[in-house]
């Protein structure tokens, strides 16, 4: 049976949904081992077992988080060797993709990013050129390294839980020598909203909000949604750059994308056109966003959004 290794960087107190998705995909491909970095609590080990992991690897070095990318790739290369894995799955974050990149060179393995589905033979599905094409790609090497986008599968526990063995992988001193070191860290204030790339619903505002994201945020909170923004809105400083959806920002594929006061230029469309359902609200009937919206409202977002928010609250009672 093929062996698969899933990398979970700092699982914390409980596994994220995106990690459970990786485990669910891994199980469809073969026997699953997990490599973690950082603290590992018993509940997490049990959850990994419930999702089919038969082995859990930890690094011999506890300070990998003090460095950027390189040493984590070196550790993971050791875990691949220890597990005998022929497929490695990582999350599709900036860090995930770069760890995959360096790991690929270390192992002589093909790397495929932005994956949304994997077939048992390792063929990966993804979309390219900002969602305008869907492609299948496959590594031609003995080992393949795939980074998988969130919301690609429904997480599912294994039919029978395993009791994973916890093993240590030796990280050589050379892994950290010469690596970029993280010398300071400042946490960003937490919004309490779901992560933009993982959210099931995104409400995004653009130039039309004219500096006031209040109605966008209130509708997002009523829907349990993440808040996004066009580049015009982030460049104007109305909201943090983290919220930017589009070619130079984040790509999202939620179940529902609500676009408010965004014209829908190609740059913006690039970030959201793979959403299942698109709703657009804009005063300008000529906005290109109406060409792709499943439901479009020509109207003032300052009227439409608060009314929708009130109505949702009323119905949810």
């Amino acid at each position, binding site marked *: 049976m093929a062996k698969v290794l899933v990398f979970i960087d700092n699982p914390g107190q409980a596994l994220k949904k995106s990690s459970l998705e990786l485990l669910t995909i891994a199980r469809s491909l073969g026997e699953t081992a997990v490599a973690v970095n950082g603290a590992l609590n018993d509940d997490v080990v049990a959850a990994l077992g419930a999702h089919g992991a038969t082995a859990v690897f930890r690094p011999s070095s506890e300070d990998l988080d003090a460095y950027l990318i390189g040493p984590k790739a070196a550790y993971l290369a050791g875990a691949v060797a220890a597990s005998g894995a022929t497929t490695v799955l990582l999350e599709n974050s900036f860090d995930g993709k*770069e760890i995959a990149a360096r790991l690929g060179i270390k192992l002589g393995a093909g790397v495929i990013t932005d994956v949304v589905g994997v077939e048992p033979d390792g063929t990966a599905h993804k979309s390219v050129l900002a969602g305008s094409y869907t492609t299948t790609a496959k590594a031609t090497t003995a080992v393949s390294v795939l980074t998988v986008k969130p919301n690609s599968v429904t997480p599912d526990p294994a039919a029978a839980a395993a009791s994973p063995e916890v093993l240590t992988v030796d990280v050589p001193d050379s892994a950290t020598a010469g690596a970029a070191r993280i010398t300071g860290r400042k946490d960003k204030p937490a919004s309490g909203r779901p992560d933009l790339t993982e959210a099931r619903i995104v409400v995004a505002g653009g130039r039309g909000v004219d500096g006031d994201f209040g109605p966008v945020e209130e509708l997002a909170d009523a829907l349990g949604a993440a808040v996004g923004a066009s580049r015009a809105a982030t460049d104007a400083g109305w909201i943090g750059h983290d919220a930017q959806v589009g070619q130079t920002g984040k790509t999202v594929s939620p179940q529902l994308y609500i676009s408010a006061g965004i014209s829908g230029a190609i740059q913006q469309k690039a970030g959201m056109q793979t959403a299942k359902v698109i709703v657009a*609200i804009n005063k300008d009937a000529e906005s290109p966003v109406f060409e792709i919206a499943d439901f479009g409202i020509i109207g003032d977002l300052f009227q439409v959004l608060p009314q929708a928010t009130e109505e949702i609250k009323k119905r949810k009672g």
Partner: protein
Amino acid sequence: MKIIVLVKHVPDAQLDRHLSDEDNTTDRADSILSELDEYALEAALQLTEARGGAKAGNQVIALSMGPAGAVNAIKKSLQIGATEGVHLRDDALAGSDAAATSLALAAAVRHIGADGPVDLVLTGMASTDGETSLVPAQLAERLDLPQVTFASELEVDGGRVIARRDSDTHYDTVEATLPAVVSVTDQINEPRFPNFKGIIAAKRKTITTLTLAEIGVDPAEVGKTGSWTEVKTAAARPPRTAGTIITDEGDAGIKLVDFLAAQKLL
């Protein structure tokens, strides 16, 4: 200071972009200098200008790998202010994935470093065509250099590079010794435009063309044969069509909620 900036000639993202039916590679008609590379070029110019610019012997070398048209990305970089250009051009490179691209670029960087060590390799955060962000990290791995990626602030001080790196949950300060591979985000600066003086000056600057043989790379290690991934199929996504469009008559918010309820999205 000697800085190499990687610049890529990519299909204009403001237009519809296509994959070729023949071999699933990107159609490169209507290509321009990748917008995200302009931030790397600007960062390089600021670092060298703070050290006396070209007059003081600082070099900003725009390096591009690609077919004949890629020279346009180099020419634009020279107009903006790069001091010289290097075009890695060889038919065998066509169809290279990130692994093969990083192999060829690593060899080109070593070649450029042969007549004086390179301090920094600067890149954009991603290309606007492939969008993988793999190449800077793979280049760093192949050159055995530290990588400092997604920098939104950057300074060089006493043989070290110090950068700010933003993630979703925190800001990090990251330090590495030179030489290093650094990628920058579109938050780092405001790229300048080429001016008339720059356009005239660019005509006198040198563009060196390199082949694989000159940088010591076996053609079998790059292109489709040297790639470690293969695109098997590509299908244009059916264009989205417009759905119901209504004009607000005072109850559009309620109609919106009705629509969401009907789609089971509440």
